[in-house]
């Protein structure tokens, strides 16, 4: 890239960021003005609360999504699967589990790649448990989930979710590694061995291409999830205005000990992305459900899903899939109880 072009790109980025920030800062006064001055609603009325909530939250969350997905897209352009595999090869377990969970967050991954990736990892000598740590964290700890949690519930909930997701990915992978379940991997996986020949890495990317990847990610991800986000916030706005406080407290509150395992069990057959599950999460949390129970439900929906098991069935025997689901499910329950207990 020429220097002039680089400079214009930097200036453009700076201008864009400033405009974004100004708009973002004015959302709150705008929602207030829109609700009470333009629509002349009665202060404190249920409808006014719902409208103000929606007008403030919807653009806010979408703006956050665009920026974060773009940024994550650029970060991800530095992590090719080949590089991830090189980092993980020859690492001891434990350290390998931690690295795999962290790399799962930043390596570009789509669930249609789960099987080739699994084979590519285990046939180059990356332990089974380490590979599974990667496969647990990649879908669960993703930028869409984190942005939505941050935008709607604040940075503490987002950080808790991320920390919990990483811990579950690390611990579950480590436990499965300790159980030595390699015999439950379909035997043809190890026999092929062809995945073992390291592929050539992709041609290095230019900054132009990284920016384009960020933009493509925004188009692809935000283009896909925005209706869910809007629907979710609309549901949230309705609940915010109308449903009585503590409505969920008796069923899903801290004192309902049975709520955590039930939430996890209900979550397994449900399959949704982070954007689709947020309306439910928001509705539950605001009306008195306990944070641990709700996060356990959300993690179970995102991390444990029947479609994913069916894809993985091509390489894993049913016993291993069951063990995998059980270990991750128990991990999620422990986290759920822990949060309910501590917070």
């Amino acid at each position, binding site marked *: 890239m020429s220097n002039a072009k680089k400079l214009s790109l930097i200036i453009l980025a700076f201008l864009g960021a400033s405009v974004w920030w100004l708009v973002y800062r004015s959302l709150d006064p705008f929602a207030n003005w829109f609700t009470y001055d333009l629509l002349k609603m009665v202060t404190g009325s249920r409808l006014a609360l719902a409208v103000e909530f929606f007008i403030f939250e919807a653009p806010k969350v979408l703006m956050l999504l665009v920026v974060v997905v773009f940024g994550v*897209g650029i970060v*991800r*352009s530095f992590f*090719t*699967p*080949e590089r991830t*595999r090189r980092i993980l090869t020859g690492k001891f377990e434990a350290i390998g589990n931690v690295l795999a969970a962290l790399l799962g967050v930043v390596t*570009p*991954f*789509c669930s*249609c*790649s789960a*099987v*080739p*990736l699994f*084979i*590519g*990892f285990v046939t180059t000598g990356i332990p089974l448990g380490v590979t599974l740590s990667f496969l647990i964290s990649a879908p669960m700890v993703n930028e869409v989930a984190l942005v939505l949690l941050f935008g709607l519930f604040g940075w503490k909930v987002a950080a808790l979710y991320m920390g919990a997701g990483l811990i579950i990915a690390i611990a579950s992978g480590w436990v499965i590694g300790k159980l030595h379940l390699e015999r439950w991997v379909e035997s*043809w996986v190890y026999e*092929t061995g*062809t*995945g073992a020949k390291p*592929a*050539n890495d*992709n*041609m290095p*990317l230019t900054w132009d*291409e*990284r920016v*384009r*990847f960020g933009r*493509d990610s925004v188009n692809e991800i935000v283009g896909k999830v925005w209706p869910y986000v809007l629907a979710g916030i609309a549901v949230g706005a309705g609940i915010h205005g109308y449903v009585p406080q503590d409505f969920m407290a008796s069923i899903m509150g801290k004192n309902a000990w049975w709520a955590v395992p039930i939430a996890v069990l209900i979550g397994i057959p449900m399959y949704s992305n982070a954007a689709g599950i947020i309306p439910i999460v928001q509705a539950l949390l605001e009306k008195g459900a306990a944070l641990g129970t709700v996060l356990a439900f959300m993690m179970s929906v995102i991390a444990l899903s029947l479609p994913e098991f069916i894809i993985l069935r*091509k390489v894993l025997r049913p016993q291993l899939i069951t063990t995998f689901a059980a270990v991750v499910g128990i991990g999620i329950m422990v986290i759920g109880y822990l949060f309910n207990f501590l917070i």
Partner: protein
Amino acid sequence: MKIKILGPGCMNCEKLYETTKSAVAELKLDAELEKVSDLREIQKYIMMTPGLVVDEKVVHQGKPLPDKEKVKKLLQSK
């Protein structure tokens, strides 16, 4: 020249197939394009779909997808 596009049929694989097709047309290459969707076949080459294989050599895998100009470069570097 034999070109394989590897992927189980998700959106990205389709996109790469279309990009490659028009790159081949613009370069007026004498190439045979093949979509490979069998996972056992795919995993012989790559870990991340979609993949682009030219004469049995992997020239690209996974995201970010190459655009048409890059695919042209990849085809010509062969």
